[in-house]
């Protein structure tokens, strides 16, 4: 048993309000006496990050790490409130809502930090030395290996479109994807799809015709595919699939292009312990941190695959001000309207 599994401080609380954290865990070194409490607010499941965090506090025994797991929208609202209205700020914000964190940085809510490790990051994974993309997680297509014949498994969006064009398809009502209104991540993926390729319109049309299901949560989608309720799910975060391995779930990295999400790390302007926050950043970017992220599938190394993706098909969601468009009220409204129109017919049925 690894020590992180038996840490005394691991307490998981269920969320009680919309603005509150979903779960909390505390990490501290077995030896040594912590003198500083580092408050981390993150969208990542505690279970996934626990080994890393424990390794971090072991290496830095003076730090007592309090980890709060938040929903991405709630975390954005909380951070914005801390920035603009001076409520209590976290020391670290670590979120998969990349566009939200970019917006926070654009609103001057972050603290700059620079080191050799941050400079080594590719330009698409940092901005203004205030926001850093730590992970690399693909948006994948998953399918039920038992129910989908091997020949029909779509490995590109075009194949998926062809599959959805068949008139009396076995896939009717059996395709799932994120509901962009309910899921921040789903919105980001769909939005990036709409910018990335012309296939997006056809995809929406296909979803509409096959009465695809839009649902809120990764867990539900993955379970649905595993149990055969859905045959195919589109734009699922690969790391979640890997985190809950199922026997009958196959994963496809679309070969026309695969979006890669990089969870973003930010030190809020009002953070009380900026030095320790930077230490955590350094740890995550260190070779040890990156290895451990890869172990928990937060850092996808495509070069290990049997059929590696061509470089041209790898589309990292770049951390830059263009993502601010995704935060625009009207743009979002228009996008959501388009989405609703697509899935409305299904509801009418």
């Amino acid at each position, binding site marked *: 048993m690894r020590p992180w599994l038996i840490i005394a401080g691991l307490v998981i609380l269920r969320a009680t309000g919309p603005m509150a954290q979903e779960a909390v865990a505390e990490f501290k070194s077995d030896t040594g006496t912590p003198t500083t409490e580092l408050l981390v607010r993150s969208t990542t499941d505690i279970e996934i990050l626990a080994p890393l965090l424990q390794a971090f506090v072991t290496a830095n025994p003076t730090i007592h790490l309090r980890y709060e797991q938040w929903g991405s929208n709630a975390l954005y609202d909380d951070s914005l409130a801390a920035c603009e209205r001076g409520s209590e700020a976290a020391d670290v914000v670590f979120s998969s809502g990349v566009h939200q964190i970019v917006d926070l*940085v*654009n*609103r*001057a809510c972050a603290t700059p930090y620079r080191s050799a490790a941050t400079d080594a990051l590719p*330009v698409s994974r940092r*901005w*203004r030395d205030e926001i850093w993309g730590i992970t690399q997680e693909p948006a994948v297509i998953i399918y039920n290996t038992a129910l989908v014949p091997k020949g029909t498994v779509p490995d590109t969006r075009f194949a998926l479109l062809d599959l959805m064009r068949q008139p009396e398809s076995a896939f009717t009502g059996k395709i799932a994807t994120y509901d962009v209104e309910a899921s921040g991540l789903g919105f980001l993926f769909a939005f990036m799809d709409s*910018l990335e390729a012309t296939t997006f319109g056809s995809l929406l049309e296909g979803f509409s015709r096959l009465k695809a299901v839009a649902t809120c949560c990764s867990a539900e989608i993955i379970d649905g595919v595993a149990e055969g309720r859905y045959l195919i799910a589109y734009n699922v975060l690969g790391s979640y699939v890997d985190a809950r391995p199922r026997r009958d779930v196959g994963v496809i990295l679309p070969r026309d292009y695969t979006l890669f999400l990089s969870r973003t790390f930010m030190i809020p302007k009002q953070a009380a312990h900026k030095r320790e926050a930077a230490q955590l950043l350094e740890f995550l970017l260190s070779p040890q941190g990156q290895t451990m992220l890869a172990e928990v599938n937060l850092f996808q190394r495509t070069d290990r695959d049997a059929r590696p993706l061509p470089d041209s098909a790898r589309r990292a969601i770049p951390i*830059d*001000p*263009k993502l*601010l*468009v995704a935060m*625009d*009220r*009207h*743009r979002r409204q*228009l996008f959501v309207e388009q989405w609703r129109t697509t899935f409305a017919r299904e509801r009418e049925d």
Partner: protein
Amino acid sequence: MADRSGVAPVTTSLLSRVMVGVLSLLAIGGCVITLAAFAYGRNAARQAYDRLLLGAAQDIAESVDIRSGAPVVDIPVSAFGLLALATDDRIAYAVHGPNGALITGHDRVRQPEPADARSAAPVYFDDAMQGEKARFVTVLRRFTERDFSGTVAVTVGQTLRARHAMAYELTRGAMLVTGLGGLALILSAYLVIRSAMRPLERMAEELTARDPYDLTPMMADGPAEVAVVAHAMNRFMQRLDRQVGAMKNLISDTAHQLRTPVAAIRAQTELALEDDPDQQPQRLERLVRRTRSLGELLDQMLSRALVIHRADNTPPELMDLRDIALRVIEEQDHEVLAPGVEVELVIGDRAVMVMGDEISLCEAVKNMLANALRHGQAPIQVGVGIEDGDAEIWVKDAGEGAPEEVLSRIGQRFERSAASSGNSAGLGLSIVKSVAGALNGSFRMERTESGFRATLALPVDTSGEQP
């Protein structure tokens, strides 16, 4: 305290003074260029990024659409792509409706005053963005639709990091080039100035190393200015050398020439004292003759010293040789030397102009005349004329002249025979020769059909010739 005024104070060299001048000029130029480059860089950055800002604002304005009576903004990603070209700058934008209500965007973006917004041209303004300086532009779009009429204002702003970075880059580039150019200029200025100064330096070195008693000429090559100085110094040193030589000669001649007559006078005096009283008048007479002869010798020697001195110290002047001849006759010195002898003056009506020194020439002619009076036979003529392009002043007598061997050594500095015999003819002619030499002329003595003629020939000066 020892008096150290004899030691020249060490002052800065010409090279270092010129270099300091050049360096300060370059430094001033560098400062001016830096300021200009900075102003230029800032301006260029402002223009460049203002265009990006305007492009983004116009992109957004284009995307405004009227749907069911309300403006809807479908923000294009390209607008933010433009703004993202300023990599590290934060962005603010807002779209305001006709009544100033926020349609979409950031609520903290200020809309410019309506007075500014009346014109259709984009309005740029500076404002703060979350406490950081930023640049904004507002673009208006007017709608006149069935269900919507009014103006939509799109305001886009950006912080100034990229502008500052660009201005800095431009300034730095300009400064780098200027700096390199300045270094090259300094280096070449140093080389040029040093090579120009080299002859001066060499002259200084030569002068420093020179023995103070060394009066030989120095090298006079190099540029004109330096050559002039060197020539002047050489002339000066030559004159000094000549004068020192003349002085030495004068002293040695004087000592030499006086020794014999003075010894003779002493001997005569002693004899007069010891001899019979009957012999005394005879002895005294001899003594008087000796003394007179000594006086003449002294006159001659002083006159020669005068001539030599003047030859080096008095610049020659334009004069008429006829005036010289007239003056010599008029002074009537010959009356003392040979009373009763007629001296004829032979001059034409044309001026004979030469460059010369009046006193020296008079001395020379007097000596020639005295020589003729002493050794020649009447009639004696003094004449002036031009012959073979030379101005000549001559003295002629009807005698045979001096024997050949005397002629050949005549005019040498001193002659023992002359001195020992107590007469000063040799010395007198040496004065004539000196004058001829000093005035670039020549002296000759020749026998002619009508007698013996001594001629001082000088180059004619035609420049000042009066018609």
